[in-house]
């Protein structure tokens, strides 16, 4: 544990990057997932198919391959993020960070999409039919009856997708972001005799973060539940 305590500021900064990656790509994934699910459940057949194809392709690709593509292959065909160079406080948001955000967002959006879709599918057909039968217009059916139920039903699966995202931020360690896992790797390399302690310290860091997200999701689920 001494090695961890000695470099405590670095460790906290590394977890700071983990949290930032999670927050930025989490927000973007929620937006991306909503767009995708709109395509998938909308009435336009070609958009349904395009959305389904994208989701199937990306969900079956290893996240590492997505990262690999945007880190090494995409610059070869003129897609790069070298223009990103923002510094806030001691945190640097450079091409490494933005590449990680793009890869994580494109990947997690598909899982968020499926989570939201399962929420829509959880609404019984009779609900929409009853709403139409009492004369609600399309907007009313959506905003008063279907979407509130779909939204509530999709809280737990979306939270699962976000927790997976939190753990997946560790893949950024392979591609140059000095977040928690990367920090752990360099600490284990420099302090061979303390591997167990270092591993446990970082693992506990992740467990705490995961439990926080899980707690937040549980609270929201309970708050939004109807009696």
């Amino acid at each position, binding site marked *: 544990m001494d090695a961890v305590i000695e470099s405590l500021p670095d460790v906290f900064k590394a977890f700071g990057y983990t949290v930032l990656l999670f927050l930025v790509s989490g927000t973007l994934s929620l937006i991306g997932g909503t767009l995708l699910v709109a395509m*998938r*459940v909308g*009435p*336009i057949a*070609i958009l349904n198919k*395009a959305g389904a194809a994208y989701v*199937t*392709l990306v969900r*079956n*690709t*290893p*996240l*590492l*391959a997505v990262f*690999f593509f945007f880190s*090494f*292959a995409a610059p*070869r*065909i003129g*897609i790069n993020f070298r223009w990103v160079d923002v510094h806030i406080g001691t945190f640097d948001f450079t091409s490494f960070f933005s590449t990680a955000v793009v890869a994580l967002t494109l990947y997690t959006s598909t899982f968020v999409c499926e989570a939201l*879709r399962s929420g*829509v*599918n959880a*609404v019984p*057909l009779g*609900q*929409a039919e009853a709403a*139409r039968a009492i004369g609600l217009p*399309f907007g009313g059916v*959506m905003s008063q009856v*279907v979407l509130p139920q779909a939204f509530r039903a999709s*809280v*737990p*699966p979306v*939270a*699962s997708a976000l*927790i997976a995202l939190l*753990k*997946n931020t*560790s*893949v950024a*360690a*392979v591609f140059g972001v000095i977040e928690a*896992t990367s920090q*752990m*790797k360099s600490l*284990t*390399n420099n302090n061979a005799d303390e*591997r167990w302690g270092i*591993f446990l310290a*970082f*693992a506990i860091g*992740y*467990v705490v973060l*995961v*439990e926080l997200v*899980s707690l937040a*999701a*549980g609270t929201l*689920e309970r708050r939004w539940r109807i009696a």
Partner: protein
Amino acid sequence: MASAVLFDSPGPKTAARHRIYTVVAAVVLMLLVAWVLKRLNDAGQFAYELWEPFVTPNIMQAIGEAWLDTLSMAGLSVLGALVFGVVFGVAKLSDHRPVRWASWLVVEFFRAVPVIMLMIFAFYAVFNSMSIERGAYWSVVLALTVYNGAVLAEVFRAGINALPKGQAEAAYAIGMRKSQVMNIVLLPQAVKIMVPAIISQMVVALKDTSLILIVFGVGLTKILKQLPLSFNNLVPTTIVIALLYIVTNLVLTAIASYAQKKFVGEKEMLKVSMVGEADQNQSAATF
């Protein structure tokens, strides 16, 4: 099914509007594809010599062997995970509080820690006496065994909870012991529900084998790392390797849904959520 909930069947005006949307969407999608193809073409990525390695017999054989390595890592770890999952899944249902708590702790720990961290740890702390390549291989197997094992433990618990209560009660009523109830009555039925979930876990394991790249490339990631060095074909290699993963996963998914139909019928596949014990109990109650 979703659209049935969301929309009425369209009238003539709406149908006409949808046709316009369809045309616009088709044009946009085609432009997108054309843009990507043009980008690839402008960068000279369709040149034959960049793709030639993938039809060269030696290299095809190397890729095949790497693919088998990846598949065997995933397969071994799912087998290990099955054992881990049964042990901890049953332990989580134990009548003894300490056993329940200990297994809860183990399962939650391995579910919350990123796989890539487990791999780094296994590589440097557990298999550090082996050769690099062997060590990396077994690090993948160990890390994925404990991670997927923790996930499967939850699947097992959910599977057993999903059985009708009467099954266990009837078994106790005819005088079976606790272990008999579990082994003879509950587990065989639960396993049947769980087979598809176990096969889908194989997809997760297969994708995660690639994470070992952080310390050393084994299996398909080895090709991903080495082939572009000799042929300068990073883009084609990435595309081919990604496609190999995708096709393998699609085959596994097809097997899983076949197993679902065969063993379980049309009911939804068993899913385990990271949060909200409540919804699991709910789904268990409605089973």
